[in-house]
């Protein structure tokens, strides 16, 4: 089985671009990835593309071939949809296909256009990641679902809105030097705590913004990288995916994310590492509580112990294991279908040393990307290592 190298990565600016089409966003991200990869477009054998709400946002289904055309490649193209984990599952398929020899070079990525809908319609669109009959019709919004998990967490393990606010403060601080981030500005703890409520106990600063953007990654086999003399120092060494019941009400746990626990366990075993080996991670903090659930699913903390990590300074850029040096979904932004691929892109830059926050982890060799769909009914975890 061949290894999988990250030959190049590309991102658009994440932010408010309501006038830009999905195809234009993905074209820009893919062009950046090809420029970074020095892989000819003709060598690409597949496009795996993540998108969640293209039908609702711009009346566009069948986005695989559309995005291949936008990227200037002639290859079979497939869209993957797994809510906010759409490009995470696309990456997993790409990793498997390079490993099993199906392809030597794959373009994987995702895009989402959201701001053209406005807040109310985007809230409605995002809710379709929940169970329509049993959650949406009972008034559950996406923030509402995570608010239910946050309260369940507080009830079971303790913790406070202040603990969550420290996560928002940390991720905003990380985003300041990141030119791709939606919010390159710091926030104060009081500002987060005093912000209007979205779905109690979650306020405005507990939530990621509504974001337009795209991400693309060129993956190649070890053999391809060596034959073509590519400078591709980062490998994907582990992939894992887990699943859970669709609706929160059907789950065993309301304050844990077993789908991500399964994904992490599988990815760590695949890479031959454990949680202690991980130097740095990008996790799916669509809401501040989601970062807590992620830290515990990744086995960085036992259940109930992840809530204070940011407050204690363990996950800040100066901490033992910095989390979301990109700014995370919270401050970098969350163009849903692009997020999994953007995490891979950011982690690649962090490990290569060309991310504005690479200096926080100069000796990092192992990074993890954790991408979650809906209320973590689906999740992927990927392990990235500096190629030996």
């Amino acid at each position: 089985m061949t290894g999988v190298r990250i030959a190049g990565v590309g991102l658009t600016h994440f932010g408010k671009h309501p006038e830009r089409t999905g195809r234009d966003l993905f074209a820009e991200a893919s062009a950046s990835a090809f420029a970074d990869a020095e892989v000819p477009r003709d060598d690409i054998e597949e496009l795996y593309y993540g998108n969640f709400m293209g039908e609702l946002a711009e009346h566009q289904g069948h986005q695989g071939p559309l995005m291949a055309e936008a990227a200037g490649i002639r290859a079979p193209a497939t869209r993957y949809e797994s809510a906010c984990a759409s490009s995470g599952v696309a990456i997993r398929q790409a990793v498997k296909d390079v490993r099993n020899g199906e392809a030597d070079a794959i373009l994987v990525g995702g895009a989402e256009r959201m701001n053209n809908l406005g807040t109310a319609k985007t809230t409605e669109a995002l809710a379709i990641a929940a169970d329509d009959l049993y959650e949406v019709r009972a008034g559950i919004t996406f923030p509402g679902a995570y608010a239910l998990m946050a309260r369940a967490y507080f009830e079971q393990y303790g913790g406070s809105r202040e603990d969550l606010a420290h996560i928002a403060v940390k991720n905003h601080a990380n985003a300041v030097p990141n030119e791709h981030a939606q919010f390159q500005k710091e926030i104060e703890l009081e500002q987060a705590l005093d912000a209007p409520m979205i779905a109690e106990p979650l306020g405005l600063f507990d939530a990621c913004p509504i974001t337009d953007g795209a991400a693309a990654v060129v993956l190649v086999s070890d053999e391809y990288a060596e034959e073509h003399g590519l400078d591709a120092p980062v490998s994907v060494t582990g992939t894992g995916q887990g699943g859970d019941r669709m609706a929160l009400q059907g789950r065993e746990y309301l304050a844990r994310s077993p789908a991500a626990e399964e994904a992490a366990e599988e990815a760590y075993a695949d890479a031959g590492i454990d949680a202690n080996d991980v130097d740095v991670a990008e996790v799916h903090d669509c809401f501040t509580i989601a970062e807590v659930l992620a830290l515990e699913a990744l086995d960085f903390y036992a259940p109930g112990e992840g809530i204070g990590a940011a407050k204690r300074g363990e996950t800040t850029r100066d901490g033992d294991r910095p989390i979301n040096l990109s700014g995370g979904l919270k401050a970098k932004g969350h163009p849903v279908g692009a997020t999994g691929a953007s995490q891979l892109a950011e982690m690649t830059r962090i490990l290569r040393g060309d991310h504005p926050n690479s200096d926080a982890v100069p000796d990092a060799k192992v990074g993890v990307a954790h991408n979650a769909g809906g209320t973590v009914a689906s999740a992927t975890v990927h392990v990235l290592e500096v190629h030996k």
Partner: protein
Amino acid sequence: MSENEHANTGYDEWLDAIEDGNAYYLECSNGHGSLPPRRICPECGEIGLEETPLPETGTIDTYTVVHVAAPSFADDAPYTTAIADFGPVRVTAMAPDDVAVGDTVSLTIGESKTNGDRLLLFERR
């Protein structure tokens, strides 16, 4: 997103039953609970699920007060949505605004202020 746009066989009849005071859940031969429409037990794969009376009361596990609503709940906001544990199944429904974790509730049918659709509602007992 009005429920009247299309029928949802299984779910609609379940709402009717709750409205008539005959709330039920589906039980497989191994005793696992689930909610309709469903043919197969999600826990063990058994088929032939039986309609079994839902326990009259459940306990609130968690709740949220939603301030930013989707257009289909615009006139309802702010509103409270909760998950309650009825034993064999959990149910998600709108709840009284002063609900608390651990409260005992029963399941009934209410109406959306926004579009008049039927919706699940917890009443404190």
